[in-house]
Each structure stands twice: as C-alpha cells, then as structure tokens.
C-alpha cells in the first residue's frame, strides 16, 4: 500500500510537471483529485488495510493529497502566467455582444409616468381626436366666437368648422356627452397652435387634461389631488401654490406653481429668479360647460386641470430646447433608456 502511494506520488509529480496547458492540468486534477480519482481510490483502500497499519497509511494518503493539490496549484499559476501572454485566455475587457436596447420617447415617458400616478388615484385614461370642430374646441367650452378669450388659443384651421385642437379640453365635452357622472378621467394627447418655433415654442406639443365630476366634488378636492400628483412626480419636498387666474371653461380658476425644482425656491435662471415654476392650469368646471352637455349644474360639480407635457419633461430632464423632442437625434433619444 505504501509503495502504491509512493508510485502515485512520483507519477503525479511527473505528469503535473509535464502538463503543457490549463486544459491538460484540469484533466490531471480530475485524474487524481476527482470524485472517482486515484486519491479517492486510495482512500477507499485505506478502509480495508489492517487496523494497526491504518493510521499510518491514512496519514500518508492524506499528505499525498495535500502534495498533489499543491503541485497542481503551483503548476496552474505558472501556466496561467504563461497563457496570459498567449491567446488562450479571453480578454474580458472587450465589449460584449450587447442586444440593442430600445427607448421610449421622453415625451411618452413623461405622459406614462404622469398617467400612472392618476391611474393609481383611480382615474381612467381617455383619448380623443386631434381633428376637432369649433364646437368642441371652443363653443362648448364657454369660449364664444368674437371673444378675446379666444386669443389664449390660437388655432390652426383646416376647412369649414374643422380645426386642429388647440388643447385637450374638447375631450371633456366628448366624454361628458356620452357618460354620466361620477367619473375621474385623464386625457393625454397632441395639441397644435400656430406658434413660431424657437427654443421654448412649438406648433405641436402635448397636454394632459384631467376631469372629475360628481355630486360633491370641491375646489379643496382639486387642491388635494394635485398636491398628491406634484409630490409624487416632483418629490416630497416640492411646495405647491394656487394662484387665481382666468380660463373660460373653469370658475374659480387657478394656475398652479411649484417651488423651483432647480433652486428649491431661492431663485435661479430656470424660474426667472422667482422661486416658483408655473406648471398647470385648473379650476372648477364652469356651469356653462355642464349646461352644454346637459348635466344638472345645480346637482353636480367638477374640477378640471391641464398641463403641458413638454414643459414638465424639460424641467424634469433638464432639457432647454423644445425642438430636441421633435428632431429625434439618436444621441438624444438614446439617453432616455
């Protein structure tokens, strides 16, 4: 038995020293130290040696195992060092075969994120046509012909009564014509206004509109809902304020400012040193709007709000030129993974 241990040792020493590559060395490791290797075989035989020899033999086999392990490890280091100089080891600093990652347009990303918050608050997403009529875009929203309030909504006309909607509010009317309160909806979509294109103006942009109507919907509910939205979207620390304003289709109306997300309200170039950023318009649905869709304006109340998606995306992502959204430069889009 001891002889056998000796011969195994010399044979292993010999073979390991001759191993020429890592593959061969792995084979030897399996041959000697593997689950069915020679050492395992010797251990099995230890069990059958006479009692008086067993401790000694056991010790020898154990020490042989140690020696072989050491030899293998030494040889491995030696071969590894050598092979780094050859081509055998891959250069893992080379790039992987990366599958392409597509990107959602930042405007859609912003719309989805905003809608997600309102879905969580129990709103439904509703959409409407971009090609609209005078009635839905103006008259039904309490914006009569020959009234200066129309100046707020410069509009592209197509032909006859048809136009490209200048806000998403017409969808309010379309929805209310077909549904009965109570309901809570948000309406994302494209809108158009004949504005000369520059860094902050575009003739095409996106809005998200909200409308809630029911028996006891209040101005306080409007404030509460928008507060949740603003904290969820812009962060817990952001402050909100309601400023009285005028929109023909809401009364009372307000513009909503948030404390500047860049300077925290101290005043910077983004907020025009005011510390506040205007982000949306809102108010209680005007009774004339309810009258148009034949709701009982004595019984139901409602609130509506609307925001410009580009403005919010520009603030959120720090984009200073609105034209970037529609140029679709791959280096721009690629940043919104």
């Amino acid at each position, binding site marked *: 038995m001891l002889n056998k241990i000796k011969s195994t040792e010399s044979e292993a020493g010999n073979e390991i020293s001759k191993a020429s590559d890592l593959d061969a060395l792995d084979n030897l490791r399996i041959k000697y130290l593997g689950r069915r290797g020679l050492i395992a075989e010797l251990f099995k035989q230890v069990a059958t040696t006479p009692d008086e020899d067993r401790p000694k033999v056991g010790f020898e086999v154990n020490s042989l195992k140690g020696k072989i392990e050491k030899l293998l490890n030494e040889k491995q280091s030696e071969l590894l060092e050598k092979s780094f100089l050859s081509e055998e080891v891959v250069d893992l600093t080379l790039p992987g075969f990366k599958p392409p990652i*597509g990107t959602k347009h930042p405007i859609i990303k912003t719309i989805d994120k905003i809608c997600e918050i309102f879905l969580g608050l129990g709103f439904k997403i509703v959409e409407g046509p971009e090609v609209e009529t005078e009635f839905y875009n103006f008259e039904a929203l309490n914006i009569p012909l*020959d009234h200066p309030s129309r100046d707020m909504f410069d509009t592209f006309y197509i032909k006859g009564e048809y136009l490209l909607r200048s806000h998403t509010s017409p969808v309010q009317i379309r929805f209310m014509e077909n549904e009965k309160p109570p309901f809570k909806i948000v309406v994302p979509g494209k809108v158009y206004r004949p504005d000369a294109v520059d860094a902050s103006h575009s003739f095409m942009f996106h809005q998200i509109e909200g409308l809630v109507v029911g028996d006891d919907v209040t101005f306080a509910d409007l404030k509460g809902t928008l507060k949740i939205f603003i904290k969820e979207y812009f962060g817990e620390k952001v402050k909100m304020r*309601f400023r*009285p304003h005028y929109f023909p289709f809401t009364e009372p109306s307000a513009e909503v400012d948030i404390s500047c997300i860049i300077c925290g309200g101290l005043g910077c170039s983004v907020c025009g040193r005011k510390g506040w950023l205007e982000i949306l318009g809102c108010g209680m649905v005007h009774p004339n709007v309810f009258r148009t869709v034949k709701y009982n304006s004595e019984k139901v109340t409602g609130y509506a709000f609307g925001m410009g998606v580009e403005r919010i995306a520009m603030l959120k992502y720090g984009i200073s030129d609105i034209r970037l959204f529609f140029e679709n430069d791959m280096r721009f889009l690629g940043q919104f993974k």
Partner: protein
Amino acid sequence: MRVSYNWLKEHVRIRLKPKDLADRLTMAGLEVKSVEKKNGDLIFEIEVTSNRSDCLSIYGVAREIQGIFGFKLKPLKFGLLKNARLNKPLIKIEDRAGCSRYIGRIIDGVEVGPSPRWLVDKIEAAGLRPVNNIVDITNFCLLELGQPLHAFDCDRLKGGEIIVRRARKGEEITTIDNVKCRLDENMLVIADDARPVAIAGVIGGKDTEVTSSTKRILLESAYFDPPRIRRALKELGISTESSYRFERGIDLKAVPLASERAATLICDLAKAKAISQPADVGIKEHKQARINLRISKVNKVLGMDIATSKCKAILRQLQLKIRQKGKDLLEIKIPSFRKDLKEEIDLIEEIARIYGYEKVPETLSEIPIWGKGSQRSNDKIIEDLIRTTLIELGLNEVITYSLGSKDSFINKLNFNEGELLTIKNPLSSETEILRPSLLPGFLNVIAHNLNRKIFDIRIFELGKSYFSKVNGSPSEKSILAIALCGMRVKNWQKKEPVDIFDLKGIIEALFEKLRISRYEFVAKPLPLLSLAASSVIKVRGEDIGIFGKFGRVILDRHDIKHSIFISELDLKAIAPHIKGETRFSGLPKYPSVVRDVSLIVDEKIPNSEIINLIRRACGDLAVDIKPYDLYRGEQVPKGSKSILYSIEYRASDRTLTDEEVNILDGKLREVLAKALNAKIR
C-alpha cells in the same frame, strides 16, 4: 400692461411695500410679471386676464387694490370746465347695436404743441410715445380711466354731422399709421357727410388727425360693441390700445367721465378758447345685473366653511351691493365696471380669491373609481403593447411633426396636391399640410441623423395620419411606422448592413406578440417604395399596411445614399385580428421526428409556395416546417436554387414510428418533385 407705481399712489393709499404689493396682487389674480425701476418710479408689468377689462387702467388697478386689500380709493377730482358756450356738435348713431353711447364735444382755439413734462412722463411710463398735447391727453385718459378717446381735426370734417354707421362695401380709409384699409359692412365707422373718418374703436383716419395746425377739435368718447370691434380688428389685422379695451368691454359709466376729464385737460394745457356742451347720444347706462348668491353654494363648491359675515365683507369691499334675501340667500348688485360677474359661480370665485386660495384645505373627492368601463381603452392597451414590444426589440421611439410643407409632400414625395389636407392659416411653410403618412417625417429624422454621422437608425412612431372622408370632412387614423437603416446591431465583430429581412423579422415578432396569425406579405408596386422590395401586408386577406424599401429617386431628393427599410401599419385595421390571452395548450406528450428534404427548384418559386405544398402533403402530422439553408451559385444549374427544409413530424396520440415517417417523407418527395419540377437530393 405697464402700471406706474407713483401714478397708482395718486389714486389709492397703499399700505404695503411695493414688493409685497406685487406678490399679493399676484396671489389675488392680478399677476405682476415684473417690477422695474425707472426714473424714480416703479413700473409694474401686470398681466390682466381677458375677463378683467376693468383693470386695464390705473384707476381700475387702484380700484382692484381697494377690493383686495380694503385700502382707501381716492375720489377722482377734475378741474372745472369754463367757457362752455359753443354749439353742441350734431351726432347721429345709425347703428345702435354697434354703439351704445357717443359723447362729442367741440373745443376751439387749441394750441397744439408738446405736452408738459409730467404728462410726457406718464405717457412714457406706460410705454407709449408722446405725440402732441391733444393726442397725449386722450392717451392719458385711456391710461388713467380705461376709456379710449379720439380727437378729430374739426375743420377737416365735411358737412355738419358725425355719423356712427356700418361701413359700406368697398369704402376705404387711410389710417393715421398711413395704412390703407378696405372696409366692409360688418365694420363700424365714424363718418362725416362724405366718408369714414375713423374705424370705430380701432383707429382714426389720416385726413382728420390732429396736427400742429389744428385749431378746432371734436373730442369723441364712446362705447362700442365688443364683438363688432373684435371682428373688425381681426379682419383688418390691426390692434391698438383702444381696440384692446373696446374688444374686452369698457365701463359705460366712464364714457362721460373721460370726456370731461380730457376736455378739462385740453382747456388747461392747450389753452382752448371755447368749448361746447357735450352732445350725448345713446343710452346712459346698461341694466345693472343682480345675482343671487347662496352661502351654502360657496362652501359646497370650495369644500370649506367660510362664514356669511366674511363673505359679505369681501363682497362689500369689492363695491358690490348686498341685499339679504334669506338666511342663506343674498342678492348682489353688480357695478357697471364688473362685466365679468355674470352668475353665482363668478361671485364664488371672487370670495375665494380675496379670501385666499391658500386657505382652501386639501382634500380628496369621495369618488372611489373612474366610472364605467376599464381604466385603459382597448386601443390604448394595444398601443402600449406595440410600444413595449418594439422597444424590447431594440427600436427607438420617435415623435415627428404632424404638419409639413407643400414642397416636401408634393415635390419631393409625389403626393397629389388635391388629396392633401391643408391648413388654412399656416404659420410658415412647415405647417401647410396635414401629413397623409408618417414616412415623410421619418425621412427627415433619418436625414438629420445621417448628416450627423449617425448611421444605425432603428425607429418607430405611433401617431396619426390625416385624410378626407368620402363626405369631404377631414379625419385621422392611428398609424404605426417603423424604419431601419445602417448596420445590424448584433455583434460588433461582424458588422453587416441591415436588410429587408431584419424589418420583416421585427414585424413577425410584433405579430407574434399581438397573436396575429395568417398574415402575408404580398408583393405590389407602391409609391415611395423601390420595385425590388415593395409589398402590402395582409391579414386574413385584408390590407393592413405596407412594407418595403424606399425608392432611390425619393432618397436622392432627400440626399440620402443609404438603404432604408420601412413599414407603415394601420392600427384600426390590425385591431380586429389581435387575439386575447390564449389558454395553455399543454406540452406535447410524444416525441417528434425531424426529417430534412433538400431540393433544387426554379429560382422564381417562392418559399411560401413550397411550404404550402409541404403542409398539404404531410397534413397535421407536420407540426413545424422551416427553411434552413438556401444556396444559389455554381453548384446548381443557372436559374435554380437549392433549398433545404427541415420538417418536424409529431402525432398527438402516439409515438410516430420510423416507417410512418418514411412513408410521409417519401410521399412528400414525390409531391415536391412533381409539383415543382424539383430535383430532390
């Protein structure tokens, strides 16, 4: 509007620092955009919303400050008019609907010259240009009281009468800005016996303007119907300080006030020798509106509890007269300057904004869910699924303009002008046409990127295209467009240009995700596309979109030298073919056997035909048939191709034996050889 702080102080006692005044005005609805120091004064730039024409003057803003803060408004004090001994002018209002009231005064012996310093300062503080004392005084009254005035050179008026009437078709007037305007019957004019001498409420005529040689003037103060003024100025494309106020509506009660104010100043500053009594034609006041207000309604709308006494105090401060009609019910009398207060809700807003929006609590409505139906529409669900699938497949979403230029659609893309929807009032050539397709926008995106040396472009867009319905009315449809260009992005070591099958694979993957089956790509020459690769996509025989490669002529016009593969799908046509969630069909119980068949056939026989033949020959037992090698070249005869198919056979109720499969395979080979005249290997 530019408001001088010093001037404001002449009308109201302000007990706030200017900065605080600005902030608090903003928070009460009169937004102060900026405050600018100028010559010892502060100029507030105030945004007056279109409903608040009463704030379009210094006095109006002072009155609003009183309403908001309760500061004391100072009474208006004018000097006394002397020498009112001339005859009144003759004034006739032919169009009563267009002009409710017209006050005219003759002032004689005026000395036209420069205005004194204090007047020049006020005019300049408001951002206007001083002209001469007469014009400056009319502007001063406009700025102070919000009442536009006009002064005519009386000696240049023909005949003895001033007439307010509709313009006659074809009449013309040259304005004081030297612009010749053609008038129509919808416009209101001030005329003498011979011709129009002013476009009412908008601008005066050159012929009768006050000049340095003017001695006798006619001073006009009037009320014109706002929609009429607005229509005229939209038609003429003119906007003046006067028209801005008239179209928003002025205070009928300010008409005599401003007339008197201006007359006194003219007597004083232009050393007039004599003046007439005013000729005052039309109605003296509009019926005063009364609105019922329920305190319970105030609190129902606002969602809070403001005490009745507080509501009444606010209304009183706003110069509204209150009559208590019941415990909860007040009748409110509206003063003539607050035309914006028309019904109960308007008063509720007044209470809310003066009380302070910041004091309204923040609550959540008790409406638990959205209402009927699902939270997302089916169309929305499909769009979202398409979007996520294409992004997973490595495409970048783009948004391109829905409008484009005639040049790009007609000259560069061969669209027929008659079929395009056009914008009546395009802002520039870039907004002339409503796009009939998303592909032109894609060409722009691709050209933009190629010009910046970005060659690998994989894009899609979900957007609308526009068309005329059969009845001629414009309409829109939802479109998915996809384009590929540049290199295949799988492996940086092996760069290969993308080809048509990259795009086809994307569409196949999308259809798999949408569970659309039985679609086919049917070759068909289409505009914009290259004959070499141009097809329609059909699902169950119905056209749902187009697919192919941009034609070279089109590319050349956009200066693009790369191949671009594109597809455009009609989402409405696709929708009915999308299947809902499937039920799990179980895993196969028995093993399958795969056999290959290799054939040499005429090059023109398409894969689809061979696969259909195999399917028919093998029946249901062939569960999967796919080509896996295609060869053209020296090893096969010219005009032929060698193509290899692998066919997977499986039965659902037993393990197929070798003999069974051999029989099927043998039969298949026979069928293929015969039907396709193929050489089987």
